[in-house]
């Protein structure tokens, strides 16, 4: 029930509420702002994203240009993060890799939401035998380990690029979201106002689209930041193994792979992308935590 209330708060505002009603969103926003860790994480997250977008544009260095004389430089004014074994500027290159990593992260999360919401909504809304069948199928998929599944998906697709990575990672990890949405829809379905809507002859698709799905919005917002770290780590892992993004394109995972050969002598090459991954994942977790507290009315005044 509390989940519906959370969802209610979020969706209500989304429906274009006048100022008096915005207390719903404002409430959540105020609670979020009171959580210092979450605010710091949010700011850092935004900074990283801005850096990834802006750095490659304004940087004097070409992130893919090989300059052997500059190889293995430590951090300096002209190369804040140093250079790698090919003399590429790591500050620019890490930003470029971040674009790919974060892009795949958000792309796959969005795909997870689309698949998960569609599957979960159908399962929860129709119920009965179909629900049972869909959920047992999900149970079967649930048993498959995440990364091997993604690798398998990539192998089946045959080519590896940004979009196939998005597909592979989302196909391997939409199960939790589907389950969460199904659970939400099932609880929401029991609400009196849904029955009241049926009682005045509202058609099923209007009930699903207007009375049920908007109320899952709060949970979905949280799900975005809960799924994001997993996907980003998955991408990094695959690229590190050489199964993901291929050179000369960079992702944080493939950059860490580049740094592996010389990690004793020049540890900064592996540390920079690893730190970036760790920071982003940590931020996403903090944000998810903050959102959950902010969107749950039970945590009102703590």
């Amino acid at each position, binding site marked *: 029930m509390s989940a519906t209330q959370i969802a209610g708060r979020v969706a209500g505002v989304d429906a274009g509420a006048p100022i008096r009603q915005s207390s719903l969103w404002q409430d959540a926003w105020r609670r979020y702002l009171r959580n210092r860790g979450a605010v710091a994480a949010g700011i850092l997250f935004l900074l990283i994203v801005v850096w990834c977008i802006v750095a490659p544009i304004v940087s004097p260095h070409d992130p893919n240009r090989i300059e052997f004389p500059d190889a293995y430089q430590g951090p300096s004014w002209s190369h804040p993060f140093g250079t790698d074994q090919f003399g590429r500027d790591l500050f620019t290159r890490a930003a470029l890799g971040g674009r790919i990593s974060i892009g795949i992260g958000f792309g796959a999360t969005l795909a997870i939401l689309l698949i998960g919401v569609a599957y979960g909504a159908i399962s929860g809304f129709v119920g009965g035998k179909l629900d049972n069948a869909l959920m047992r199928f999900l149970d079967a998929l649930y048993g498959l380990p995440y990364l091997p599944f993604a690798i398998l998906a990539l192998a089946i697709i045959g080519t590896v690029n940004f979009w196939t990575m998005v597909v592979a990672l989302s196909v391997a990890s939409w199960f939790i979201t589907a389950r969460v949405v199904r659970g939400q829809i099932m609880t929401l379905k029991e609400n009196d*106002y849904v029955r009241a809507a049926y009682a005045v002859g509202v058609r099923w698709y209007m009930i699903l689209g207007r009375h049920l799905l908007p109320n899952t919005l709060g949970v979905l917002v949280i799900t975005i930041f809960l799924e994001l770290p997993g996907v980003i780590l998955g991408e990094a892992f695959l690229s590190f193994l050489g199964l993901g993004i291929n050179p000369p394109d960079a992702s944080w995972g493939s950059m860490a792979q580049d740094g592996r050969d010389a990690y004793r002598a020049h540890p900064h090459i592996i540390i920079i992308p690893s730190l970036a991954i760790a920071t982003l994942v940590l931020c996403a977790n903090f944000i998810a935590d903050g959102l959950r507290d902010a969107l749950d009315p039970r945590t009102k005044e703590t």
Partner: protein
Amino acid sequence: MGRLLEVEDLRTHFFTRAGVVRAVDGVDFSVEKGKTLGIVGESGCGKSVTALSIMRLLPTPPARIVSGSIRFDGRELTTLSERELEDVRGREVAMVFQDPMTALNPTLTIGTQIIEVLRRHLGLDDRTARRRAAELLDEVGIPRARERLDDYPHHFSGGMRQRVVIAIAIACEPRLLIADEPTTALDVTVQAQVLDLLDDLRREHEMAMILITHNMGVVAESADDVAVMYAGQIVEQAPAHELFHRPEHPYTEALLAALPDLDDSDARSRRLTAIPGRPPDLIDPPQACRFAARCPYAGCGDSCALEPPALRELRPDHRVRTAHPASEREAVTA
């Protein structure tokens, strides 16, 4: 006055793992055009299930209308497809639910929720629907109706919300309004207002109404006819005045005796009268009269302990399901 709704031998059972729950087990009644039928009974006697059966709103499975017929203005409702039902619900028959705190979607403005129905059934365009919605709110007694269309349910008090729920229910001028305990969740002070409102609306719109309640006082105030339900069956049905002054069924008598009498000066110190025992298990109801175990008149070797009494017409419009109606008892003792 013709009959608007005729329910005959309605049986709605729930098929659960523990067994078949005979929630409604052979209910007959009819509602006259423009009249109010009160259905009273204690919790779990099948009042609400009867109402939801008429609307065909029960989840199937586990619930199923096993037999019987529900005719609305000559049209059989039990065999309609879901698609056809959608056109009946809200247009011909509408329902007011018990708890106004949950019967409105908290995420939509009340305007949106009223307009949704108007557009669905009457096909009004947005502007006309909005104007009509404001008129409806005004009609159910919500001040500054036009401005309040853009408010959310949580901006309204319980009583006001119930008025909104009623506005939605009567939006398309249904011919039958089913009110399932419409005042139970409200403050006592507001209850009377809501009942008056329902009564006014019924008269103005020439609607018939089924008023479901466990409150005898509510029935006495607004019903033309009363049906008393017990354990999934109607045990007594009569015009309201007749039922309150000449109750025949021992259960009805007991219910009326259980009402506290405020004129009695000792009322405060006296314990409230209760009916001993509990209603039977509806998974395996007794073969005999379902009230026999609690009936003060059921003796040993009595016919009512062996075979279930049928609903019989004792006087015109006064039907009762017992072997010991009050009038026959008097005849015996006299």
